[in-house]
């Protein structure tokens, strides 16, 4: 018998929200599998998954069309959606923990814009790098440049918006606007300088879509995002402590500076890689952690893995909507996520307006 039960006979045993969140992890993983299967079996060409599986099971050859549709179009697109969705949702959760604020999101406060500038720099000026370096970096060059851009803007933003361990929401959002404007100006100059081929690359990249998914893009993003996702859960305890303030986190035995630096690096890596391959897809980082906090509470040890799963599921789902709603044409996925996400953002803002002092 625990002490609590002894002191309060008959009282309902407190619900452990972390336990609930761990059970939710299993549900979310199953949901991701289901959504992935549906995503693989739906599309403009009408290739269905079951005939293909049956064909594989009975040893029949796939038709050339089926193979191209499944292996070269739908599968890389699915994997990219899973990676990008997980990366954006985890980045959002990490930034919110770091800034101690549920409105912090890489897309809103200018980190994605910074990563975007890095990507544009790589597209336009990448040709100026020594040839050996270009070959060595290969398809990673945009991802790496986006990572550096995202990292610089996160560090800048943190310096501006946080003073003595406290983050001013107003400063954070305004600094994000300023950062995005500055990045926009630089990007404009680069676009102006770009030649025709580069312009085409930029246009496709800037659409913020999974439509251009290829195995090359998957391979360019996967190592960075998977590494970031692997490191993120280790920040859970530190971010929980930070919720009580920097000083208290320190007294709880947390190396505050280490946690902050690592969180910024992981955010920059995940956001950078996601932006490099999919352009700016917004609001996943706001919506997913918000829903999970409502469901199972703010404990980051459970929030971070669950955010990865729900983010992946949500983006794959949004991608299906973007492919099917105006089929055979495609709606850019950024539009779908904005339609879902912007109202959630406004709802948080309205609910917390008084406590945020806005």
């Amino acid at each position, binding site marked *: 018998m625990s*002490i609590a039960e002894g002191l*309060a006979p008959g009282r309902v045993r407190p619900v452990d929200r972390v336990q609930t969140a761990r059970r939710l992890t299993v549900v979310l993983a199953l949901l991701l599998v289901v959504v992935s299967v549906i995503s693989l079996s739906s599309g403009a060409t009408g290739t269905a998954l079951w005939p293909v599986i049956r064909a594989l099971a009975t040893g029949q050859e796939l038709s050339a069309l089926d193979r191209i549709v499944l292996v070269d179009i739908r599968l890389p697109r699915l994997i990219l959606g899973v990676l990008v969705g997980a990366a954006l949702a985890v980045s959002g959760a990490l930034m919110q923990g770091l800034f101690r604020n549920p409105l912090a999101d890489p897309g809103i406060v200018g980190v994605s814009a910074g990563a975007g500038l890095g990507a544009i720099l790589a597209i336009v000026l990448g040709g100026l790098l020594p040839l050996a370096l270009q070959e060595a970096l290969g398809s990673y060059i945009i991802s790496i440049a986006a990572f550096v851009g995202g990292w610089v803007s996160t560090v800048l933003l943190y310096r501006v918006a946080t003073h003595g361990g406290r983050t001013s929401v107003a400063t954070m959002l305004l600094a994000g606007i300023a950062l995005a404007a500055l990045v926009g100006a630089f990007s404009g100059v680069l676009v102006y300088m770009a030649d025709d081929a580069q312009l085409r690359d930029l246009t496709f990249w800037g659409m913020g879509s999974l439509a251009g998914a290829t195995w090359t893009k998957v391979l360019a993003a996967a190592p960075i995002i998977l590494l970031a996702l692997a490191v993120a859960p280790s920040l859970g305890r530190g971010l929980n402590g930070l919720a009580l303030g920097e000083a208290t986190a320190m007294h709880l035995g947390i190396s505050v500076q280490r946690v902050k630096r690592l969180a910024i690096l992981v955010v920059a890596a995940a956001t950078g890689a996601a932006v490099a391959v999919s352009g700016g897809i917004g609001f996943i980082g706001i919506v997913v952690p918000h829903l999970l906090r409502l469901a199972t509470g703010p404990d980051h040890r459970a929030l971070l893995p669950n955010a990865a799963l729900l983010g992946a599921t949500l983006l794959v789902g949004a991608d299906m909507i973007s492919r099917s709603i105006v089929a055979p044409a495609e709606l850019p996925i950024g539009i779908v996520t904005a339609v879902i996400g912007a109202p959630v953002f406004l709802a948080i803002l309205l609910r917390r307006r008084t406590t945020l002092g806005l």
Partner: protein
Amino acid sequence: MIGKEIHVTLGRREILHGLDFAAQDGRITAIVGPNGSGKSTLLKAMTGEIAATGQMELNGRDIARMQPWELASVRAVQSQSTTVAFPFTVLEVVRLGHSAGPWASEPGIPEAALARLGLEGYAQRFYHELSGGEQQRTQLARVLAQVWHPVQDDTPSWVFLDEPVSSLDIGHQFVVMDLLADYAARGGGVITVMHDLNLTAIYADHVVLMKDGQVLARGTPAQVLTDATLSQAYDHPLRVNRPAPSGVPYLLPQACRGAG
């Protein structure tokens, strides 16, 4: 806990001017003094929240050479700031303290800590929906859950508190002070910044009276809380009374108004 030659400079202003500090385990050491005398600054310098020069030792070990997790296993700190980002429940906040301390594997401590502070029914309430006093008691429960047993392998555990009763009603002030006295009596160390001189007189074993970043007087409450010393510290004529049976000094604002 020993501090020697503690200097703190914030901006261009030196707040603490090389003061010495000592507190013993098994006692409540109270830091008192007027507003701006450097009470909280001294506490923050000792807990490492602000940069300070000087030598500081806890249980005979140099604090500067201890890792955050080592310190967290022998010392818990309650600062004045009580904001918690995100909707954590009361129990979850207390568990954050519990899981950071050396008794993390011993079940039931967070619930017991809440019970000691009269918060049994609050475990599932959201922290940010509580009143200021309830938040303050929750934070104290968190501190207590971190260093639950006052002695660990013959080494005392410590709590550092910055005005732990400032938001509490008089009933809960006594609950908290009794709890601290019990912690000290069982061998733990308690260092607390106090605003209320009467509670200090009742509960403190050792009083450090500060003024202008220096120690004006130190000793037992009877030695420190005298008319002359307090009047000098607070720049106002103050008169201390002593009730016959206990001899514990007390101040009545009524008796001090227009005194001198």
